[in-house]
């Protein structure tokens, strides 16, 4: 588990107020009883934590499971880092 994944799991557990041990890659939002309103808060907390902006097309409210969140965020974080290393190339 890398740092991105760990932080996202922490955020999901904290924002949705669920046991951290229940948060797994293949757990669906339904499994975790995460309503869309919780997801909105999770996305907000992720944006603040990683200092990224998550467009709706990258991570919509129809997200299925925890791994989808991690994949989307990792991509944005990588883009963001690449962008800051080589401005104008992102």
């Amino acid at each position, binding site marked *: 588990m890398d740092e991105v994944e760990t932080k996202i799991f922490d955020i999901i557990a904290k924002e949705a*107020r669920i046991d951290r041990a229940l948060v797994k890659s293949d757990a669906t939002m339904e499994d975790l009883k995460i309503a869309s309103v919780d997801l*909105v*808060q999770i*996305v*907000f907390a992720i*944006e*603040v934590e990683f200092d990224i*902006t998550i467009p709706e097309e990258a991570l919509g409210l129809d997200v299925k499971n925890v791994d989808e969140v991690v994949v989307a965020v990792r991509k944005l974080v990588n883009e963001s880092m690449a962008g800051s290393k080589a401005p104008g190339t992102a």
Partner: protein
Amino acid sequence: MNRRVAITGVGCICGLGNDLPAVWAEAAAGRSAIRPIENVDQTRLIAKNAAEVRGFDPETRFDPKLLGALDRVSQFALVAAEEAMRGAGLAGETRIGEMAAVILGSGVGGMTTLDESFRKLYAENGVRVHPFTIPKLMINAPACQITMRYGITGPAYAVASACSSANHAIGTAFHMVRQGVVDLALTGGTEATITLGTLKGWEALRVMAPDTCRPFSAGRRGMVLGEGAGVFVLEPLDHAIARGATVLVELVGFGMSSDAGDLIAPSADGAARAIRGALRDGGLVPTDIDYINAHGTATPANDPTETKAIKAVFGDHAAKLAVSSTKSMHGHALGAAGALELAITIAAMRAGIVPPTANYLGPDPACDLDYVPNTARVQPVRAALSNSFAFGGLNAVIAVKQAPSARVVA
């Protein structure tokens, strides 16, 4: 259908205290809650005093998950609603249903949320605000939170008419219960606007006192802000009696008017029309009234105008009225003002004690009624009015009478 309407529950939170017994103890003692502001940095303020709610810890009052969606304005409303429902013997209800309403006044809604969010954007160059910014700041949020808490599925909405918001809400709910639209209503007002942005806005109008609030008094310098909420349980009198609820007072009249004149300057004619309207609606004559909880903001303009309006309506009886402005103690709570003042009026009628106008220094020739200066007075109150007059020229007056049983006893 024209049913008699009882008030069977009252909840109140403001600078004077966090429930009605605490608020009333202070008001009856004539103690003012106006003090140096703690929740906003005073260095940029000219008017540095307000009547803030103190000793209120939301963390201990609300579930953390709920609290994230509650602006201070909703927190106050829920606390006051809880006290009112407890008093009415309905605190355990969570599915009250569609024959109940929630009509709640607020001048501006979630100002704390608005102030914090915009500061992030404008001052801190932030790129995002919290996702609950809108649902927290909307003016109807407090009303909606109460519907969800008690499962009230009938009419529910917010009323916004600046400083008359609470009285307009209470009056509207009263008419709904009286006409049989609903069998129960939670109504009142809530406000939490002691923020830097709001305080600077009020300062700019040059109506704020730099010291304290001295309604109807010589040496008055203007208003001082307060905050809080008052919530009432209204139901048909016969329902209340049938279920053995304590009828605190009977709500009998509601009068409203619009000046259609100036956006800020008050009109004695407009105020008088609303007062007359409340008497007429309640089947009252001027000599029935013993006490008026005045709008009494302590601005140079309001107090002589309100005095003139009272004299126009009451004639010779005006001199016999006890008239006090409890804003001298809990400050001007804007959209919650009428609710705080009705709560105190009800406590006064129950106790047979008229609360004073605190901070009174001496008579002003333009304000020549009996303002119960500085010290409460033991005096039975058969019926009372509570006045609210708002910017925009919107006037709303509530009339209450002693509960029927209390009248028999008296």
